């Protein structure tokens, strides 16, 4: 093979390798879930955040995984766990929980903490502890836990045998759900990670793999800007 041919082959190989790297990086960047901003309210310093947890997100590369949808200002649902919030604001959260539940691995997470008044309203009733044994066997489905802000909100599950059980997200209010509302304050600028403390990664070791370890499902960030 001539020198020119060898140089040409080398260049082509290099270009192919570069193309593969660009493709992989672009693919990774494109796969990052979107960031959804909380919706401003008519009250200054207050924003609204509407979320839902589904037993199966029904979309994307892992439709059977448990995960979150966040509603944007136009009412559209986005499968993500990246949420943008304004600094020094009060966040009014409405959380629709559509998944079935069970016991907590550590019952300490049944206490509501870090919200305004350390309470949450479960189907309209103020609670400061969500007892996994008092929900007619439906237990706790998930917890919304932000360690950096000291927030922990457990959510009652719904019966998996309910006739209108939601099998794939995004679910709608005509399907079996628990409504949880609470408020919390954001502080200064920061990126606060959040997670669920119910090991809900079905089929993974200790239930903590899969959706529990992937941004966009049961792990995410509150981006306070």
């Amino acid at each position: 093979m001539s020198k020119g041919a060898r140089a040409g082959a080398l260049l082509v190989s290099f270009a192919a390798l570069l193309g593969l790297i660009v493709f992989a990086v672009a693919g990774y960047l494109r796969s990052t879930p979107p960031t959804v901003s909380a919706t401003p309210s008519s009250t200054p310093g207050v924003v609204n955040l509407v979320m839902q947890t589904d037993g199966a997100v029904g979309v994307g590369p892992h439709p059977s995984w448990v995960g979150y949808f966040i509603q944007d200002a136009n009412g559209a649902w986005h499968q993500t766990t990246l949420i943008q919030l304004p600094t020094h604001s009060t966040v009014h959260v409405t959380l629709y929980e559509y998944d079935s539940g069970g016991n907590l691995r550590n019952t300490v997470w049944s206490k509501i903490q870090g919200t305004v008044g350390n309470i949450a309203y479960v189907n309209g009733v103020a609670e400061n502890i969500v007892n996994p044994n008092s929900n007619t066997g439906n237990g706790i489905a998930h917890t919304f836990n932000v360690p950096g802000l000291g927030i922990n909100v457990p959510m009652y599950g719904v019966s998996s045998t309910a006739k209108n059980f939601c099998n794939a997200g995004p679910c709608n209010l005509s399907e079996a759900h628990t409504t949880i509302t609470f408020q919390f304050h954001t502080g200064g600028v920061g990126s606060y990670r959040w997670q669920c403390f119910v090991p809900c990664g079905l089929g993974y070791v200790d239930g903590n793999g899969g959706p529990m370890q992937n941004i966009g499902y049961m792990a995410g960030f509150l981006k306070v800007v």
Partner: protein
Amino acid sequence: MANFVLDESRSEESTKGHLTKILVIWAITSVIGMALVWFVLGPHLPPGTMTDQAQGAQFDIRLVSTLVVPVLFFVWLFFGYSIMKWRVRPGEDPLAPGANISGNSKAQGAWYIITTTLVLGLAAFGTYFLVVPAGAGGAEGSSPIWRPATKNILQVQVIAQQWRFTYRWPQFGGMETTSLELPNNTEIQFNVTSLDVIHDFWAYGLGVKADANPDYNNIAYAKTQQTGKFVVRCDELCGIWHGAMYNYGHVVSQAQFQTWASNMETQNAALTKLLPKYSLTYTPSYSGAGGGYYNTATDPNANL
């Protein structure tokens, strides 16, 4: 170690003269270096003095750092001296035969004796100080060989879970907290366990480090002796939030601790009722989602 005897014809001074110079410079710089390490750097060496165990670790590091100075300086000085003194100078033939090299049994023997004594001495020293402060803050398994002399010990259970540490207090009604406050001048027994994978409870400032294994109680001791803030980190890779699995703790006065513990006991009374009975380990499940709940006698997913 090679030992060098110079070809007198190429040397301006005798071997003894060079050796004397090296030894004098080495002795002076070593004394200065050791003093600087011991007195200036020493008090700032990690992990501090918040507990007996941390102070012991700091003393060990301080001593080893000080003793390493003369060894390090001798090696550096010898190389530096050789480069400066025996380099080829302008006008000299770089290809001319160099100094003859021959063995020197006295130098070799001295080197072996000094380094062996140093290493064995430090090993004996380290072993002794591992025993004296009750395990030196390291984990001792579920049946510790070395225990503190006193029986007045505060029990703190460290429960690791992907991806937080929580703390349980059997002497305060079995309450469980997400924060860690410790009283000063108190002997503490950490009972470390996990609800899922292997974590590691590393309270660096306390000089305490213990793996958190599921189904296992790993015990470490520490005696607090200084108030302040310390950080607790997980030191076993445990998943996506491993890097975020940390929290801060405080050593406070005994009165402040009693107030904190009483308040927490009252605030958590309703929650404590929901907790399982205090146990040294809690059996998680290995069979998947949500399962193997905290402290259940049987695995609800065993037959799945």
